[in-house]
């Protein structure tokens, strides 16, 4: 299983990187977002641009990569005529999909680095990471959360003909709801309740807490637990979806959309 996961990850990274749209999300998007957010935040009175500009631009890039790659990968396999082959391959189909998503997500982490480099090179802004170890722990939690939510979306979009439309439609709403660029407390209370149903909300809060410096370790781990719980819930959902799709495909004897 690990060999399948590893080889799928490497192959997926190479396949994703040759696509112009992925290259935009990976390389151009964090640079442009950093410029845009820096110009918007430069007079905000915020001294540490790491929390909203660098982290915000990097996470927006990361999420775009996920939307335009992981979410549409099953559809891309169908388009290439290889979906049936990987579905019936001796290696498990969910493991192959997981390998693809992990590959994409790990490669997409480059957006955080690009965003950081852009802010330092272009603007020489003060950047501080007050709690690096907590940041590392938060990053691991965030990557896991993004991998799992990508799997759910990928499965949801598997049997749709309009993947491209939905990929576009989920990008900005999640960035807004999960508070990538501003705290979710800015949103109306009813919307905040919705935000709390998305695991990336907690991931972003944890990363931001680590950037500013964790003063209340209890609160950090409490949020971490919420993140872990939601991620586990999403993982269960993606497994359920995988089983339902597998059953539907076996009954209808086709992987094509209706």
């Amino acid at each position: 299983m690990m060999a399948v996961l590893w080889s799928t990850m490497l192959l997926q990274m190479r396949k994703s990187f040759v696509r112009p749209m992925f290259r935009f999300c990976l390389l151009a998007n964090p640079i442009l977002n950093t410029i845009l957010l820096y110009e918007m935040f430069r007079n905000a009175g915020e001294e540490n641009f790491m929390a909203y500009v660098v982290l915000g631009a990097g996470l927006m890039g990361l999420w775009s990569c996920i939307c335009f790659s992981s979410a549409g990968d099953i559809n891309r396999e169908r388009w290439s005529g290889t979906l049936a082959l990987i579905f019936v391959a001796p290696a498990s189909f969910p493991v192959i999909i997981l390998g693809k998503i992990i590959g994409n997500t790990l490669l997409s982490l480059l957006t955080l680095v690009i965003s950081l480099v852009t802010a330092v090179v272009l603007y020489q802004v003060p950047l501080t990471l007050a709690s690096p170890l907590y940041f590392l722990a938060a990053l691991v939690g965030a990557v896991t959360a993004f991998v799992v939510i990508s799997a759910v979306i990928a499965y949801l979009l598997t049997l749709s003909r309009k993947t491209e439309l939905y990929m576009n439609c989920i990008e900005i709403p999640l960035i807004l709801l999960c508070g990538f660029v501003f705290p979710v407390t800015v949103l109306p209370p009813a919307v905040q309740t919705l935000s709390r149903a998305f695991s990336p909300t907690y991931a972003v809060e944890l990363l931001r807490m680590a950037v500013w410096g964790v003063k209340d370790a209890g609160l950090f781990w409490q949020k971490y637990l919420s993140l872990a719980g939601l991620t586990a819930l999403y993982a269960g959902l993606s497994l359920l979806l995988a089983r339902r799709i597998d059953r539907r495909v076996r009954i209808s004897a086709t992987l094509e959309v209706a």
Partner: protein
Amino acid sequence: MIRRFFEQAYLYHKGRSAAFHAEEFVLMQLAYPLTSLIFYCLVAAYSFQTANLTSWVVGNAFLLCTHACVFQLGIVFDSDRFYGRLRSVIAAPCAKLPLILSNGVFPTIFAVCASVFGFLIGSLIFGVDFSGVNLGLAALCILGAMISASCFGICLSAIGLMSDSMHLVLNVVSYFLMIFTGAEFPISQLPLAGRIVSQLMPLTKAIAAMNGLFEPGDGAFWTLMAGELATGAVYALLAWGIFRIAERVARRSGKFDLF
């Protein structure tokens, strides 16, 4: 000829939208851009620490045309190539300017609708007060801006004859519109080179003109609108020029792409 122009415009629209149901079409044309408007207005409210979001509602309502004018119109020739129609378009013994302009008719209509919708929703959510604004001039401003943005989209689509990475080009351009038009932050924040680029972009002058309508006594409206329309005309001519070059190269080299 006029009838053929509009028939062609309708056929282009049908080709772009036939795959979608009405609700999906609305989702694509309105819901997604509207979420973007709300998102950037919220970012502005938080970063600029202000409750008066008029200029961001104005800027982002204009940017709602990006989907129709940049992403839809920008891939026209790319799609023509993909569906094997490019050879007929290039080889057809007809004038190419009406053909190019007919592409822009429906995106312009949808862009105007999206913009007006953006103003309405933006004013409802963020409390923008239109009571002191001359609505006739505002409508004229929106129409002029959308014509200019459509001409820009047509020019981008002509660039599709020279590049095989149009998704990359169009996405970068959509960010350029956010950075250089003054929709998200004042142009005066940009360095000199950035301020020059902003004057070459569509929508910059229309956004300034619309913002001026909210400030009584601002007399630059007509100058700015003339500048906006001139910018659009330059992009339309540029598209026509690129297409002529593509035609000539196609006849000489026997292929339809410049890359």
